[in-house]
């Protein structure tokens, strides 16, 4: 069987905002199609910078980055827009446009991306479909300020997936949410992965989020998450520490890792399959 193509590749990538102080230090990894990669690390370890660098929102000062098969390391900003249009991103604080309604936010990529040509009459159906996916169809005309934190996160997911991108980047999707809402958001991420076979990078500092992604699958018949059992998911864990990649491997390898820093992120969840 042919190996899946890499949708994202980092080759010894370093990022510095102040000269001599690396925020990311020689990071190398690749994400093949269909894989979900959980990125963990303490606050300030470079998780968000890594995601933004993957999108070309931050520039690398060393190394090479390939996104969807194209080397974006030195591409000028105006050549990156069409590539970014094929990647969905959920920002840490949702980053919804606060002067637009939820419907306008979700329609934004459809209306503003040059590479997407959708007739105006099909636009509304597409927006509704995307909001139905995150169970937020009733909030079409609401403004972000009228939504709860969890609803904002769901609206942002709807905006990220509305164009059907093959690669999704989630930046701390459960940060600051209560356990029930956090579970709902993770269930949506798993649903998106299993329904549309998307590749994803999920930044989180909660081990239970990674555990859920690695061990559960979305059941379209019941609309719930079922233990993956034999149908193991393609999930890889990464741990960052002060801008360096200190662990990369499967969940089993993560749990067996003797490094004390890595060990702090691992705890046996009660609901593990």
């Amino acid at each position: 069987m042919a190996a899946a193509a890499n949708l994202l590749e980092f080759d010894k990538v370093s990022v510095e905002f102040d000269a001599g102080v690396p925020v990311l230090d020689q990071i190398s990894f690749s994400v093949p199609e269909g894989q979900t990669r959980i990125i963990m690390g303490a606050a300030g370890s470079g998780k968000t910078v890594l995601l933004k660098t993957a999108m070309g929102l931050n520039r690398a000062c060393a190394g090479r980055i390939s996104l969807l098969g194209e080397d974006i390391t030195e591409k000028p900003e105006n050549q990156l827009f069409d590539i970014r249009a094929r990647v969905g991103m959920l920002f840490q604080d949702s980053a919804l446009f606060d002067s637009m309604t939820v419907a306008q936010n979700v329609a934004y990529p459809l209306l503003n991306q040059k590479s997407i040509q959708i007739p105006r009459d099909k636009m509304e159906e597409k927006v509704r479909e995307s909001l139905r996916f995150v169970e937020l169809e009733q909030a079409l005309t609401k403004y972000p300020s009228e939504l709860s934190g969890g609803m904002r996160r769901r609206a942002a997911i709807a905006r990220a997936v509305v164009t059907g991108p093959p690669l999704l980047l989630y930046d701390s999707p459960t940060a600051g949410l209560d356990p029930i809402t956090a579970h709902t958001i993770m269930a949506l991420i798993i649903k998106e992965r299993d329904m549309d076979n998307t590749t994803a990078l999920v930044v989180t500092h909660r081990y239970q989020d990674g555990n859920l992604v690695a061990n559960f699958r979305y059941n379209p018949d019941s609309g719930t998450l079922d233990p993956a059992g034999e149908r193991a998911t393609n999930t890889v864990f990464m741990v960052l520490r002060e801008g360096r990649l200190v662990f990369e491997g499967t969940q089993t390898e993560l749990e067996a890792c003797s490094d004390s820093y890595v060990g702090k992120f691992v705890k046996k969840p009660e609901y593990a399959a």
Partner: protein
Amino acid sequence: MLASGFVLEFLKGPTLALQEFYLLTGRAMRNVTRQPHYTDDIKLQMDSIGVGSIPIVLLTGFFSGAVMALQMGRALQQYGQTGRTGTVVSIILVRELGPVLTALMVAGRNASGIASELGSMKVTEQIDAMRALGTDPIQKLVTPRMIATGVMLPCLTVIDDFVGMVGGWIIGKLLYDLDALQYWSQTWHALVWSDVVQGLLKPFVYSFVISLIGCFYGLRASGGTQGVGRATTQAMVAASVTILILNLFMGLIFVKYSGN
């Protein structure tokens, strides 16, 4: 040696800011001819910047024209030349006060408004979200504001000039008993083509100062709500000072080359 090192270090920040401003200006200008054109955003900004500024421009124009007629009429009375009030009001308004006062009012209202709007978007990652969603924030946010201000500021200046002349006429009529026909024929005949060119070219140039400085400070905002407040103040101050400096230099150029 130490002093020169300190001066060089001190100049780094302003030089970098100036470089970034020129880059932003260049990209915003280049986008005028590039697809996609966000015409809905241009119309929205024309309404917000242009139509929204009409009340303040009417007030500024009327009272500046009225006060000018009041003082000029008094000064001209000493020479028995009160009848020339219309000429003086017209020339000063069209050449200098109209463009400058309108630009300062619009800068106060819109350079700060643009900076706070874009600054808020910057600190809440909305600008990054825009980039991540495959749209160029300069094309989507800066170019429409630049075009809208470029179209609307000369129009607002014409309104300001006319309302100023009306203010001058009312004062002239009430205090100096000026004849309406005499006043209006003098305001009309006092103006030559170079005055009209000057009166329209100045606001066109100032429009770039207002929109681009507002956008520049907004897009550079950092440090949460405090940073947005700082960007707003800086944008308004920088735009106002630049307008006043440019006004002197443009005035000198017109005096030198047109004799007016």
